[in-house]
């Protein structure tokens, strides 16, 4: 043990990540591989900066997986989940069933007892949710057919872990432990259901699940609204973490997978207005913990064993990956995937999963599998996991080009469907008018609003409004800024608008930004920041008053209209000129003097240009001069 306490360890882990992940990304290897390499580097077989405690870290970091499932749940509306039931049960069931059968047969062939072989088969049929989803997300492949199918299979596997944990002790020659003791690897050691009969246990489990669903529907939202009213961002973060940890504990107490519980809570909250804020709050924790998890996996690869028996381990890896690949390809053919999608699907799922570590240790505890069998297999699983990002790169660079297709283009419309092209930040008097106009013309809008009372009201009116402080980059990200095309800042806070423009320009330069502002000086600031369209909030209203005043005085409505439009155009042009003039002396005069000078310049330029204001199209005085006529300046 090299550690000088917690801070030294944290320092080692963080620096490993910060050094190795950017390099891996730069090389096109993806962050997962970067973390794994970092883990290997600091592990017992690298620089030996961390020792055996890597295992503990891994258990802790598995919480990242729990958070990831929560976030996935948030992205999955119940209706979408229901639509996926076919793939989940069909593909997932087939994958787990066929792989288990194949590996069990191989195990028996190599002389394992049926019980051991089955335990190994079940364990190895699982794939790595963490690695696969993280990698697919990073490559933007989640929305493809293959990505969606892979996700369905992974979801089924996460659920299948529960019965597997239940079956293990039954397979044991001598039953020693209860399901739950090893089932919850994440926290408390005793569960409430222990000692009850099977029926009671089942009832309690059902009760907890019902509690999560009903609580999510009726309790969590008022709770978040209450927290949100404090307007303390960190309190909301705390509440979000509390929710995830609370559910994890609850699930552990009844012997279920915490990941499954938080996933369920996520699905229940997918339709709530706090979805984006929750995503924004949990995301950094998830990212860090998941990174930590990958590092721990990298560190735990037992190179002693690998170097001792390189042939055996190599064969195990090749065998495992080959069997999984074949099964997945067959499933792809059964479900009629296109070839490119089928290969992507198979390559993403052809590895062992993190649950294998849990299941193998559980199996060993239950004497279902011996250590001599389990240890090489654990090594093989870890290597296959580490190879996944590499396999996907090979698929991307070498195999996919042969199919001539890269992305599934037909899916394009779907993704636009899910992420709205317009994000409106601030939904008060100003934003709501813009939003209603867009919606009335079938343009999807995502609304971010910081006033929880207003969020509640607008949702009652059937609008899709999300709670959150729009100036946060993570929230903007969660709101789909990457896919959106237009960002409208409609809140009434100049400094915050400026900050947000700055942030959006930096992270999402593709967005066309619309802002409101109170006056000309604010417009200048925003234009300098690179805003594309900026609007003085009282400008057009004032002009409308001008039109109505003119018509009341007896001007023809059309004349008043044109005069005003000419005036407007002139003002816009003058503002633009002023903006550049202003720049030269910006530092010399105070803001109030600036305003007066601006106005003065404007008035002067108006006087100069009066001649241009006249509509000469219907004024035939010039015609009269040429062709002759009695009256002056009017006719026809």
């Amino acid at each position, binding site marked *: 043990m090299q550690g000088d306490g917690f801070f030294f360890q944290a320092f080692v882990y963080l620096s490993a990540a910060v050094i190795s992940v950017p390099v891996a990304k730069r090389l096109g290897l993806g962050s997962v591989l970067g973390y794994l390499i970092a883990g290997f580097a600091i592990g017992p077989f690298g620089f030996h900066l961390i020792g055996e405690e890597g295992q503990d870290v891994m258990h802790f970091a598995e919480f990242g997986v729990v958070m990831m499932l929560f976030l996935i749940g948030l992205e999955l509306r119940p209706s979408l989940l229901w639509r996926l039931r076919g793939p989940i049960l069909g593909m997932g069931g087939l994958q787990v069933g066929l792989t288990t059968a194949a590996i069990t047969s191989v195990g028996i062939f190599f002389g394992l007892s049926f019980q051991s072989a089955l335990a190994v088969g079940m364990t190895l049929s699982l794939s790595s949710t963490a690695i696969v989803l993280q990698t697919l997300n990073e490559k933007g492949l989640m929305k493809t057919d293959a990505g969606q199918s892979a996700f369905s299979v992974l979801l089924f596997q996460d659920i299948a872990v529960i019965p597997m944990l239940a079956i293990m002790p039954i397979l044991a020659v001598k039953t020693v432990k209860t399901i739950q003791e090893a089932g919850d690897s994440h926290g408390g050691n005793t569960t409430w259901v222990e000692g009850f009969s099977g029926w009671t246990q089942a009832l309690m489990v059902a009760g907890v699940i019902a509690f999560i669903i009903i609580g999510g529907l009726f309790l969590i939202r008022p709770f978040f609204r209450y927290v949100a009213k404090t307007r303390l961002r960190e309190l909301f973060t705390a509440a979000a973490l509390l929710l995830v940890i609370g559910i994890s504990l609850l699930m552990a107490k009844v012997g279920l997978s915490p990941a499954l519980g938080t996933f369920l809570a996520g699905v229940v909250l997918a339709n709530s207005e706090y979805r984006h804020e929750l995503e924004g709050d949990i995301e950094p924790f998830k990212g860090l913990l998941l990174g930590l998890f990958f590092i721990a996996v990298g560190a735990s690869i037992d190179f002693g064993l690998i170097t001792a028996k390189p042939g055996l381990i190599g064969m195990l890896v090749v065998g495992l990956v080959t069997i999984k690949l074949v099964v997945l390809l067959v499933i792809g053919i059964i479900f009629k995937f296109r070839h490119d999608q089928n290969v992507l699907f198979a390559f993403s799922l052809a590895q062992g999963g993190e649950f294998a570590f849990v299941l193998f240790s559980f199996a060993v505890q239950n004497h279902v599998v011996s250590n001599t069998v389990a240890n090489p297999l654990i090594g093989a699983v870890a290597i296959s996991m580490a190879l996944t990002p590499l396999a996907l790169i090979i698929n991307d660079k070498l195999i996919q080009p042969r199919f001539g297709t890269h992305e599934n283009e037909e899916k394009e419309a779907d993704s636009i469907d899910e992420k709205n092209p317009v994000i409106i930040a601030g939904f008060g008097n100003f934003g709501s008018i813009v939003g209603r106009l867009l919606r009335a013309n079938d343009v999807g809008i995502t609304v971010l609003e910081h006033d929880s009372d207003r969020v509640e009201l607008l949702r009652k009116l059937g609008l899709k409004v999300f709670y959150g402080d729009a100036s946060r980059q993570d929230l903007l990200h969660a709101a789909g800024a990457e896919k959106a095309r237009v960002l409208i800042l409609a809140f009434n806070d100049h400094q915050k608008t400026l900050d947000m423009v700055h942030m959006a320009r930096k992270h999402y330069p593709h967005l066309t930004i619309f802002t409101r502002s109170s006056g000309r000086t604010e417009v200048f600031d925003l234009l300098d920041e690179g805003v594309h369209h900026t609007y003085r909030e009282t400008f057009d209203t004032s002009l409308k008053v001008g039109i109505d005043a003119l018509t009341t005085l007896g*001007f*023809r*409505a*059309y*004349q*008043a*209209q*044109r005069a005003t439009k000419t005036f407007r155009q002139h003002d816009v042009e003058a503002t633009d000129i002023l903006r550049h003039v202003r720049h030269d002396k910006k530092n010399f005069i105070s803001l109030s003097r600036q305003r007066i000078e601006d106005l003065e310049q404007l008035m002067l330029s108006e006087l100069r240009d009066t001649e241009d204001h006249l*509509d000469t*199209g*219907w*004024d*035939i005085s010039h*015609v*009269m001069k040429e*062709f*002759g*006529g*009695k*009256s002056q*300046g*009017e*006719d*026809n």
Partner: protein
Amino acid sequence: MKNFENNILILFAHPALQNSRVNRHLIKYITDLDGVTFHDIYEAYPDFHINVKREQNLLLENDIIVFHHPLFWFSVPAILREWMDLVLQHMWAYGKTGNALKGKILFNVVTTGGRESLFQHDGIHGNTLVEFLAPIRQSAYVCEMDFLPPFIVHGTRNITQQEITSHGEDYQKIILSLRDGKVDLEAAKLHQRLNSDLKSIIKT
């Protein structure tokens, strides 16, 4: 509640009435008549956002439709053209089931800056005013409307106040006669312009 033989709708279009002495006077003679609706469309729709339903209802309520406008580039002012594009909808004004305007009467009241002599086959413009109105006439035909010759005021650039008054009185007379069903339509159609000889077409 039809008190008159024919209800009349005058669609008036002038983008700069403030500059038009002749039209300012002409409209005075027909704005306050019973059974006659004066509809100033540039005033009603300064932003060109024409309310199609409202316009169609106005058309349904009337039997005689008048396009009163100056001649701009040998055609109607822009908003009147926009009005036709939007209001005369397929399946409403024309087409298999479009017969809302069937049997109604349409004619133009046109003012031109140029003298009548310019609007001759041997004049500068090479065509008569009636010929320039061919698109309107054909539109009326497609809508199964009865098209009458236009009421024309030529040479507004050199017109005297006396002449304007006389035209105004004629305008009022023909509108009232049409309203009361006292115009011999077949006789009227024989003329190049509605106001060339009022006595010969107004029944007493």
